[in-house]
C-alpha cells in the first residue's frame, strides 16, 4: 500500500509547488532573458549602442547588458555600423565562431542595406553575409529603437521550437 512507504510519493509539504511547462517554453525562457550581445560596432551606430547600454537606457533591464567581445560567449550579434567589404569576411568569421543558438540584429540603415553608402567599398546590407533576425531603421536608430529590436527578437525566440532543434542538431 502507498501509505506504507510515504517517502516514495510526492510530498508537496517538503518538495514545494510543482510547475508543469513545455520544454520549449522553459528553454526559450532561459535564452530570452540573458541574450548576451556581441557588439559589432563598426561606425557611428556603435555610439547609440553604447548609449543603449549606459545608465539612461540600461539594456540590462532586458538581460542583454553583458557585451561579450568574445564570440564564444555571445548569443546575439548586434551589427552597429557600416560594413565595408574589407570588414565583411571578419564579420562573417566572428558570426561563424559564435556558438549556436545565435541571432543577429542589423542596427541602422548601413547594416540593413548599406545605407547612404551606395559605393564600391560598402557591403549593401549585412544580410548578404549573415542571416539577420531583426532590422532596425534609422541613421542612427535611437537607443529605444534598439531596445525595441531586442524585445522583438525576444518575441521571436519565444516562438522557436527549441527542443526539436536541439534534438535534431
Amino acid at each position: 500500500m502507498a501509505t506504507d512507504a510515504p517517502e516514495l510519493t510526492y510530498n508537496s509539504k517538503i518538495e514545494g509547488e510543482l510547475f508543469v511547462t513545455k520544454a520549449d517554453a522553459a528553454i526559450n525562457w532561459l535564452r530570452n532573458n540573458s541574450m548576451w550581445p556581441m557588439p559589432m560596432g563598426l561606425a557611428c551606430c556603435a555610439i547609440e549602442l553604447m548609449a543603449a547600454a549606459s545608465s539612461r537606457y540600461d539594456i540590462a533591464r532586458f538581460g542583454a547588458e553583458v557585451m561579450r567581445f568574445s564570440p564564444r560567449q555571445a548569443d546575439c550579434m548586434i551589427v552597429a555600423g557600416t560594413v565595408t567589404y574589407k570588414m565583411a569576411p571578419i564579420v562573417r568569421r566572428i558570426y561563424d565562431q559564435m556558438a549556436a543558438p545565435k541571432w543577429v540584429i542589423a542596427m541602422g540603415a548601413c547594416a540593413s542595406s548599406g545605407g547612404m553608402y551606395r559605393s564600391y567599398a560598402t557591403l549593401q546590407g549585412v544580410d548578404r553575409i549573415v542571416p539577420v533576425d531583426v532590422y532596425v531603421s534609422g541613421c542612427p536608430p535611437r537607443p529605444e529603437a534598439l531596445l525595441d529590436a531586442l524585445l522583438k527578437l525576444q518575441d521571436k525566440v519565444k516562438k522557436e521550437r527549441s527542443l526539436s532543434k536541439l534534438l535534431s542538431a
Partner: protein
Amino acid sequence: MTTDVEITTAVSSQFPSAAPRASADCPAFNVPATEAIAVLQWLRDRQGYDFLMDVTAVDWSAEQSPRFTVVWHLYSGTKHTYVRVAANCASDTEPSMPTASGLWAGADWHERETYDLLGIKFTGHPDLRRILMWDGYPYHPLRKEFPLAGLPTEISDPEIAAELKEGVISAPMAGGPFVATPGEPMSEAEPRAKDEAWNEHNEKPE
C-alpha cells in the same frame, strides 16, 4: 589666411624649372617629377615649410597626357602660410613618383592612400601597401574610369568567399548617385537618390 608673397620669386630663382601654377588660394608651383623631392626639401629646410599637410594626386582622365599629377601641401609653422607643389607623373600607364617619406614620416600613409586609390607608385617608399582597400583588390577606385558603384570582384578572404558563394557586387545605383544637396529644408537636403524616374525595377530612361 596670410600669403607668403616672396616664396614665388624665391622658388623660381632657386629652381628655374619650377613654374607658377594657377591657384585660387596659396602660392603653387609645377615642378618636374625628378626635382620634386629637392624642392620639398628646400622648402622644408630653407623656407620653414616644416609640416606636410597632405599628399594626394589628380587623375585628369585617360584622354589626357600627362594623366596623373601628384600634389603636396605644405604648411609653415613659423610663417603660418601654405604652399602647394605639383608634379606630373612621367608615365600615364605606370605612374610613379619619388617618395617624400624620407623628409616627413607622415608622408608614409598619405602615399599609401594615394597608391591605393589612384595607383601611383612611390619609389623608395618603405612599405607601399594598400591602406583602405584590402591587399589584392584589383582596382584603383579614384581613377576616372572606375564607376562609383564599383566593379564585381572576389571577397578578400578565400575561405569566407567559398562559404558565401558571392563576392563584391556593384552597388545598386537606382535613382542615380545617392547624394546630399546643399540648402534647406533638411527634408530636401538630406542624401537621397536624385532621379526617382528609375529604380531597381524600372530601367533608367535613355
